[in-house]
């Protein structure tokens, strides 16, 4: 397709600006030396450009999107309706408090419900994404140890199955990362953990259920070991969808959590974001929270706040959408959502496991991991080839090559918003692709055959990325 700059012609455009009704003023020395090079198109062309782009992409609105560890659930339209209310969209962040009591109630109620769901006592809604929430939570842990004069605690323990953002966030926050191995069941290796903790332990980062989709039954023992060594426990909320309303990180012994509203709480994820990654904590850490919190109709800053991690109140309209979701499904809907997510994942796993070897064949939580290692050895067909072939079936492929502890991994997270009929169709598709890979392995490198773009050259894209338009002059 043509790029928007290729459609552009000088002088074309659509202007709906009202007549100027204030005195015109231009600064004597403009801040920029040259005008920005914007595309000039009439509205029809703009509309067609975006429609053409939309046809080439794929989202939850197009079909099944089982991207593991991403919780690509459906985003209810009522969320958008609430976030579009003029009382919210017309707000200015510096308006006097008495004029924004509704918005403050949104902040306070969201914090209250999210604390109830996680078993935390206070939460900041400022972080704009999951990793940002992790970074914020780690700064709370750092502030805590510093406040007690315990500056020897410089290490964060992370299991080898963790999301890559965990070690990255810990490094960003100035900690040294200690990686510990998982045991053969995919759980935290308690002996390794006991060896790793000590007077230099600042904390442990963990997601439970873990990245292979299993709930670690040793969780109370794990958090006890870390606490006894003087460290704090951090819960990565990436997989909360499996347990929300059923088990609470706060009751498992965690001191700090982050949530992904764009995963668990049905706000748009990916290109449609923006995200929101609130960080919650137990009462003894609340004094360090960043930003301002709405308490009794007033914005208040914590006594020993670590400062701001983002401007004002974070992505406020995303918070509105998440609150809408919580209120729509209600107290009974929260655990039911988790139960359906787990049921859907187990249904797919049981229907696929005779063909696709499961990395860990236990009852899973909201997602499961298959390993195509044997297929690669026998036929040369890789997890990547299978994922690409699934595109031809009109679905989004699962997460590939994650977690790193499973070779040739495909990680499937169907979410609760898919019907049994959809799951059955997708199971058929997975089975067909598998059979084709066994019967005609030589054809698999050519997949997909029917998508607008077939196989992008990932290697070339990584080595020599072209990330902006090259104008001719």
């Amino acid at each position, binding site marked *: 397709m043509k790029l928007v700059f290729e459609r552009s012609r000088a002088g074309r455009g659509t202007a709906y600006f009202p007549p100027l009704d204030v005195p015109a003023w231009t600064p004597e020395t403009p801040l920029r030396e040259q005008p920005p090079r914007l595309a000039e198109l009439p509205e029809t062309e703009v509309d067609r450009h975006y429609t053409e782009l939309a046809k080439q992409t794929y989202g939850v609105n197009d079909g099944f999107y089982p991207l593991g560890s991403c919780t690509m659930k459906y985003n209810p339209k009522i969320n958008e309706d609430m976030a579009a209310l003029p009382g919210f969209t017309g707000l200015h962040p510096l308006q006097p408090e008495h004029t924004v009591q509704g918005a403050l109630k949104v902040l306070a109620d969201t914090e209250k419900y999210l604390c109830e769901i996680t078993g935390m006592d206070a939460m900041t809604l400022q972080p704009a994404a999951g990793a940002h929430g992790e970074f914020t939570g780690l700064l709370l842990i750092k502030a805590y140890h510093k406040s007690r004069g315990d500056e020897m605690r410089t290490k964060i323990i992370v299991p080898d199955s963790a999301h*890559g953002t965990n070690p990255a966030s810990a490094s960003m926050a100035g900690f040294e990362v200690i990686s510990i191995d998982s045991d053969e069941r995919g759980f935290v290796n308690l002996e390794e953990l006991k060896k790793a903790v000590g007077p230099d332990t600042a904390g442990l980062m963990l997601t439970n259920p873990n990245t292979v989709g299993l709930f670690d039954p040793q969780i109370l023992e794990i958090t006890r070991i870390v606490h006894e060594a003087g460290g704090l426990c951090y819960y990565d909320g990436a997989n909360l969808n499996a347990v929300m309303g059923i088990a609470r990180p706060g009751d498992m012994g965690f001191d700090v959590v982050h949530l992904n509203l764009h995963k668990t709480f049905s706000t748009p994820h990916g290109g449609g974001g923006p995200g929101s990654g609130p960080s919650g904590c137990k009462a003894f850490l609340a004094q360090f929270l960043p930003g301002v919190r709405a308490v009794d109709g007033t914005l208040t800053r914590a006594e020993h706040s670590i400062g701001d991690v983002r401007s004002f109140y974070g992505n406020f309209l995303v918070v509105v959408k998440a609150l809408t979701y919580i209120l729509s499904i209600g107290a009974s809907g929260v655990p039911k959502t988790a139960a359906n997510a787990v049921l859907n994942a187990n249904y797919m796993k049981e229907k696929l496991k005779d063909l696709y070897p499961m990395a860990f064949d236990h009852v899973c939580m909201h997602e499961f991991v298959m390993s195509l290692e044997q297929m690669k*050895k026998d036929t040369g067909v890789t997890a990547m080839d299978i994922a690409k072939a699934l595109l031809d079936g009109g679905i989004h492929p699962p997460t*590939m*090559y*994650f977690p*790193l502890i499973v*070779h040739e991994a495909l990680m499937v997270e169907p979410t609760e918003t898919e019907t049994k009929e959809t799951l059955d169709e997708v199971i058929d598709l997975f089975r067909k692709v598998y059979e084709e890979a066994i019967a005609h392995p030589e054809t698999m490198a050519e997949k997909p055959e029917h998508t607008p773009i077939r196989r992008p050259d*990932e*290697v070339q894209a*990584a*080595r020599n990325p072209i990330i902006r338009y090259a104008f001719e002059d």
Partner: protein
Amino acid sequence: MNFPKDLQYTRTHEWIRYEGESAYIGITDYAQDQLGDLVFVNLPEVGDEVMAGEPFGDVESVKAVSDINAPVTGVVEEANEALADTPEAMNEDPYEAWLIKVGEISATVDLMDAEAYEAFVAEEG
């Protein structure tokens, strides 16, 4: 899969080749095959100290980023900066595409000869 006889190998899939008092270090054919097409490499600087069994750099493929562990404790004498522009050399000829040359070697992890490493890979893979 290629396992040259004149090299020694680690359990984390690095090779080491001694030359006088120094040694060249790289990743094995099995490692590059598992990682897939490599697109970036991070190397230490000349004069940096590397510790036996500890990461000294990392390589990134289209799949993932992986640490590279030092088979020996020593000081970096040379880093193969050319790999920054041609990371594909590690895929094409992993035993020529050395990453670093280390001197002042004081400690070593348990190393395998080609035969033992081949058996180790067969078992692991």
